[in-house]
């Protein structure tokens, strides 16, 4: 891979983590100095970026992205998904394993890693499948995937639940050897089968849509935190969507169980009433829940019960969504709008500060995935993976402008306040105000 030298850059007057104005000097892909020292240390030829009014965060990290390559390059490629990520302020994404073929071997994991490096917009870290072919029957080659160049640390059958309790126990035990984590798609397949596509309740009853009861998620979350306690392993709960799951996670954390949890931007802000028109854009797994659940999720994110925001960016080709609601594909786009949703919903009303955003969208996801070069503090010596945010920029989401190859954007037509201004990967600009800049290759 050819790397070009990145010229030094002085970021002037940025609000670092929303906690004070500082100058930040970037040299050779790292933060060289912060504060008054930065200007003094700037070598000849340093470019200057005036960042007054902008907030500087460590680069965003998404623990839950679907890039569709290999297998469904018509919906998304590693390159197009990486561009969407960079445009959304991300510097690293964890690419889920439900590709075709499934990422269940070291070879496929390395292929995804290499595709990401070739694209060069963000660090792409493959997530390994927990079970071969996501079939839920035999463990995939967890250790070999970890030993590969991809250094896989996060394992998930996302899209499906590891519902066999014994297999889940073995997976949790096995990944302890290399400090891995199992990310669970909590969905009891007997309580919410493949046809379930709408939160079970009055609305699903009225619409005649197969219900996905909250308890189908909650029983698996409860089981898995107990398995994590039994094994002493790390378990991560993907896309928590119900108040009951929050309650279980809160209890488990109080017990000292090593559990982390994520919430998606759409479960935070969107609610089930959007399904009244049967628009498959809003079909997602787990389904959009009632307002009461969304409010609990917002509160849990603010108080730290839920550790991170993860996008569950799930691009789909048009033809896969243009079916009757129950037949359409699950999932919605999220990389380009995640920061705007968190800003609009949590930061603007004063429920979270930008330092909290850094925690839930960068530091904590990087820590869960054990990424050593992402989610670091804005301190000298840290890699210059950074996101500059314009906290006041208002914009109406237009799905036509997406870098993703797909258009299943549930935010289309909504106004969001707060947007990525500049994304820097190892000191190099990868995106500026939604426009992506050339990859590293």
């Amino acid at each position, binding site marked *: 891979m050819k790397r070009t030298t990145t010229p030094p850059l002085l970021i002037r007057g940025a609000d670092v983590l929303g906690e004070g104005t500082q100058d930040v000097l970037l040299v050779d892909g790292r933060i060289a100095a912060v504060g008054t020292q930065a200007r003094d240390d700037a070598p000849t030829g340093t470019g200057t970026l005036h960042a007054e009014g902008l907030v500087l965060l460590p680069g965003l990290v998404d623990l839950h992205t679907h890039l569709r390559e290999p297998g469904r390059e018509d919906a998304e490629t590693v390159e197009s998904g990486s561009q969407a990520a960079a445009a959304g302020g991300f510097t690293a994404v964890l690419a889920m394993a439900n590709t075709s073929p499934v990422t269940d071997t070291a070879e496929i994991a390395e292929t995804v890693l290499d595709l990401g490096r070739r694209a060069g917009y963000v660090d792409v870290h493959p997530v390994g499948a927990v079970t071969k072919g996501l079939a839920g029957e035999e463990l995939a080659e967890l250790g070999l995937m970890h030993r590969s160049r991809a250094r896989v640390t996060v394992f998930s059958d996302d899209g499906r639940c590891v519902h066999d309790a014994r297999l889940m126990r073995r997976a949790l035990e096995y990944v302890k050897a290399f400090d891995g984590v199992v990310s669970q798609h909590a969905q009891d397949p007997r309580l919410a089968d493949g046809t379930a596509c709408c939160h*079970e*309740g*009055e*609305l*699903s*009853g*009225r*619409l*005649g*849509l197969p*219900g996905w*009861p909250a308890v189908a998620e909650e029983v698996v979350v409860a089981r898995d935190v107990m398995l994590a306690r039994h094994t002493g392993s790390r378990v991560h709960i993907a896309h928590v969507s119900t108040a009951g799951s929050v309650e279980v996670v809160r209890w488990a954390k109080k017990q000292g169980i090593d559990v982390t949890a994520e919430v998606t931007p759409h479960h935070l802000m969107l609610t089930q009433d959007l399904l009244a*028109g*049967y*628009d*498959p854009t809003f079909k997602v797994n787990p389904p959009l829940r009632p307002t009461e659940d969304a409010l609990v999720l917002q509160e849990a994110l603010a108080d730290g019960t839920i550790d991170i925001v993860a996008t569950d960016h799930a691009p789909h080709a*048009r*033809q*896969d969504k*243009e*079916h*009757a*609601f*129950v*037949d359409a594909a699950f999932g919605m786009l999220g990389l380009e709008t995640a920061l705007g949703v968190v800003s609009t919903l949590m930061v603007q009303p004063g429920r979270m500060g930008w330092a909290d955003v850094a925690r839930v969208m960068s530091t904590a996801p990087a820590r869960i995935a054990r990424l050593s070069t992402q989610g670091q503090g804005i301190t000298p010596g840290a890699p210059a993976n950074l996101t500059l945010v314009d906290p006041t920029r208002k914009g109406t989401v237009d799905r036509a402008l997406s870098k993703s190859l797909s258009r299943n954007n549930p935010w289309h037509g909504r106004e969001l306040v707060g947007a990525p201004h500049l994304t820097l990967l190892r000191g190099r600009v990868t995106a500026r105000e939604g426009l992506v800049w050339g990859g590293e290759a």
Partner: protein
Amino acid sequence: MKHLLSIADLSAQEITSILDTAVSMHEVQDRDVKKLPTLRGRTIINFFFEDSTRTRSSFEIAGKWMSADTINLTGKGTSVSKGESLRDTVLTIAAMGVDMMIVRHPASGAPQQIAQWVDCSIVNAGDGTHEHPSQALLDAYSLRRALGELTDRHVAIVGDLTHSRVLRSNLLCLRKLGAAVTVVAPPTLMPSGIASWAAADGFAVSYDLDAVLPTVDAVMMLRVQRERMSGGYFPTAKEYAVTYGLTSGRLARLPAHAVIAHPGPMNRGLEISADAADAARSLVLDQVSAGVAVRMSILYHLLAGEGNAQ
């Protein structure tokens, strides 16, 4: 009115207008020559993605008696089964210049989605477990013929409510016409959220058929689908028949004037006994006959009514 997608879209006045027009349409059935020129030159596609006998033939007869050109298409063997998206499939058919598409689909909401994609009129002929508005209209028509105006009449709807599109349309229709409604089923066959739904829409919920029967003016029995029996919804067919079937014994609990309705097809011996199905107070065949008249009225309102005349 451009579409008939849900009873929810109709006002009580519009429902009454459809039922009143159906009265005159019903007279056509007694003529030697059953033909009205009303829809001459109009093309109606019966697009049935799911098997149906009575609804499809009823709509087809209604269209033909009104001189429309009616064409039947099924989901089987069409481009849908070859992997084409629903949107592309219906756009292709609509592009042939049809005036109306009558859609039966196994997926709830499909007619609503189709109505957003094409320009022609869409009639929902049953979508998944959502609605079956023309059935509700013909049920109301039959009940009205038997009982007079439905205001303050009490109708019990009994059976597999979870999976019944007839239930959802009938609830809306009967409530709009002022009837009191009680839904009766075991808790496993009640739609989710039924308690809050009932509170919002003003109907009653009961698990006790015997307690409800003496209070009704009409009892509408819904089919229990045989495939549900392995789904753990109830222990055995025998237990269901004894607990929730309209048995011969329960016939005696009905008030003398009360009538029996069933949208068919019937499982005799399960949700309804032969005695009840064939009783003089049974409206089952009247419902079928009324189906053509009501569907003629629906076609009239959508294609030839005020604002639609060419």
